[in-house]
């Protein structure tokens, strides 16, 4: 499927280093994102942004590095607890809270990655799942996580100590938390941009080469273990950023965020949107979260339906929404 990628690795590395950036799509995306809270319930829109970033972070590792992690909830939910605790108990400002959460996820990613990259393929998935379970039980038992209730009442705080993020603005009839929304939009877009830069960098090209044929990448002189570990840490850190931001938005860090269900769901988001595509995880995350909120009244039927979507995607739709579109598009031209 990606045979050409590999043959072009050397040229790709050189080209990627020189490529000029076209900023127009970014400006358009940002403009659209800025208008969303006027049409969609802002808190839900922010939740979508967080999950989209989470799925993109996962996809950086799975789609471009070929490493299926089944334990990404540990970074997402773990960072949510750390950031939440830092903002609530230490009174850190939001930007510092997010930074602390992200760094904690990166550190955790370093430890996990160090252990997990020793095994490949399917074992990698099982190892990450098991490691994430350690974090889950830690969160169940640790005194500062609030157990089953979660860490509640995380304050929005003042951005840079100046701007109160809890203020709302009067728009027509509604009170919209626009300040918080734009902060979240900037943070998640920055994360997304970073992923896009990484994927199109020489680093990203080498990562794709490792995915296609690791022995060959080794023979070309790349220290593949180091690349994989770095990709793992970056992916973990960005998942942590997403989790910390979600804690800030919701004012809550809970056990659901660290559970294996969440790890599985981010896999589904990416699979549904299209593994190894840049926009796919965003599309997948939005689809799944909307599905969740639409089906909320059906109780545990949601789990059944999510499971069914999983089965359907695997059997009939392995390219995902964006992957399928890209495939059709290429074919017809």
């Amino acid at each position: 499927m990606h045979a050409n990628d590999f043959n072009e690795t050397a040229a790709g590395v050189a080209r990627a280093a020189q490529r000029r950036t076209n900023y127009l799509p970014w400006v358009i995306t940002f403009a659209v994102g800025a208008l969303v809270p006027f049409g969609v319930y802002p808190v839900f829109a922010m939740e979508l942004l967080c999950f989209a970033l989470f799925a993109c972070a996962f996809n950086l590792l799975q789609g471009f590095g070929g490493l299926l992690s089944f334990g990404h909830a540990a970074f997402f939910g773990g960072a949510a607890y750390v950031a939440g605790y830092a903002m609530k108990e230490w009174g850190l400002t939001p930007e510092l809270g997010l930074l602390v959460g992200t760094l904690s996820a990166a550190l955790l990613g370093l430890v996990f990655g160090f252990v997990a990259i020793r095994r490949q393929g399917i074992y990698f998935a099982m190892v990450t799942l098991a490691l994430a379970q350690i974090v889950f039980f830690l969160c169940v038992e640790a005194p500062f996580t609030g157990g089953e209730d979660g860490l509640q009442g995380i304050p929005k705080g003042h951005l840079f100590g100046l701007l109160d993020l809890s203020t709302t603005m009067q728009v027509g009839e509604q009170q919209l938390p626009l300040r918080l929304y734009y902060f979240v939009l900037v943070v998640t877009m920055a994360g997304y941009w970073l992923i896009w830069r990484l994927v199109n960098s020489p680093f990203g090209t080498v990562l794709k080469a490792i995915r296609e044929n690791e022995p060959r990448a080794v023979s070309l002189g790349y220290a593949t273990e180091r690349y994989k570990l770095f990709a793992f840490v970056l992916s973990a850190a960005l998942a942590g950023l997403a989790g910390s931001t979600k804690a800030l938005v919701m004012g809550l860090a809970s056990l659901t965020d660290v559970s294996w269900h969440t790890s599985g769901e981010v896999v589904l988001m990416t699979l549904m949107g299209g593994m190894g595509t840049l926009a796919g995880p965003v599309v997948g995350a939005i689809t799944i979260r909307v599905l969740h909120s639409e089906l909320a009244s059906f109780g545990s039927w949601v789990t059944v339906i999510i499971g069914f979507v999983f089965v359907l995607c695997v059997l009939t739709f392995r390219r995902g929404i964006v992957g399928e579109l890209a495939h059709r598009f290429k074919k017809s031209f």
Partner: protein
Amino acid sequence: MEVSLQAVLSQVMLGLNNGAFYALLSLGLAVIFGMLNVVNFAHGAFYMLGAFGALIGYEYLGHWLGDEGLHVSFWLALVLVPLVVGLLGVIIERVMLSRLYRFDHLYGLLLTFGLALMFEGLFTNYFNVAGEPYNGKPELLEGAINLGFMFFPKYRLFSIVLSLVVCFGVWWLIERTRLGAYLRAGTENPDVARAFGIDVPLLRTLTYFMGVAVAALAGVVAAPIYSVSPNMGADLIIIVFAVVVIGGMGSIMGAIVTGLALGLIEGVVKVFYPPLANTVIFILMALVLLWRPAGLFGKE
């Protein structure tokens, strides 16, 4: 901290009991992975289905059929439930899994993950998440037995012995019989095995049936011990994954020994440092990976 020998011994026996379940499940997982190249995430769900099969047969079936006096006995369930759940496995293998063999391993994992979610969600709808007790424990196995060094519940002893018998039965079937030789040939090299006239697709179906039936059997045996709940399988399967990573999926005996040993270790940890009991297997997994990346019995 004062720890009596009695407490340690009883935890060791309980640990052995858990270990027997780990062994049964990791065994099935290993055989299925060998033959089908699928990491069967739904294995825990089949275990859960087994437990519910026993529960439904005893508590609900008579009510549903309008005959309140009808109870499917434990012994009958022990035979019937694995067959029924195994057949469900056969359908899943034929209809879904068999379409994925030519793709990457991860799709098999994802498909069975989706199935596990479906089963779990379905049972959460109709049954109490906190779990329901199974009251069909046979009278023969009520009470405790004197093992010389301690009194031990008869049923627990029975479940350990039965699990071990099934484990070694499967081992014998695979390592010592003609069918097992076909199976090993199919695992080693499916194309060559086919060239020699072995019906590999049939063998795959049979393997999946066997693995699933063993998981369901474990579920039936577990029903009188643990409360029967929709998420009992998911909790177990993640531990069993760690067991499989530690033992390596290459060896049947490795899976059995690792499962038992880890159950024991978990039991002992429960006595000396309870907060660690939930995670000790995962931590051991990490340590083993650092020390021997291929697992204890792995041939990678």
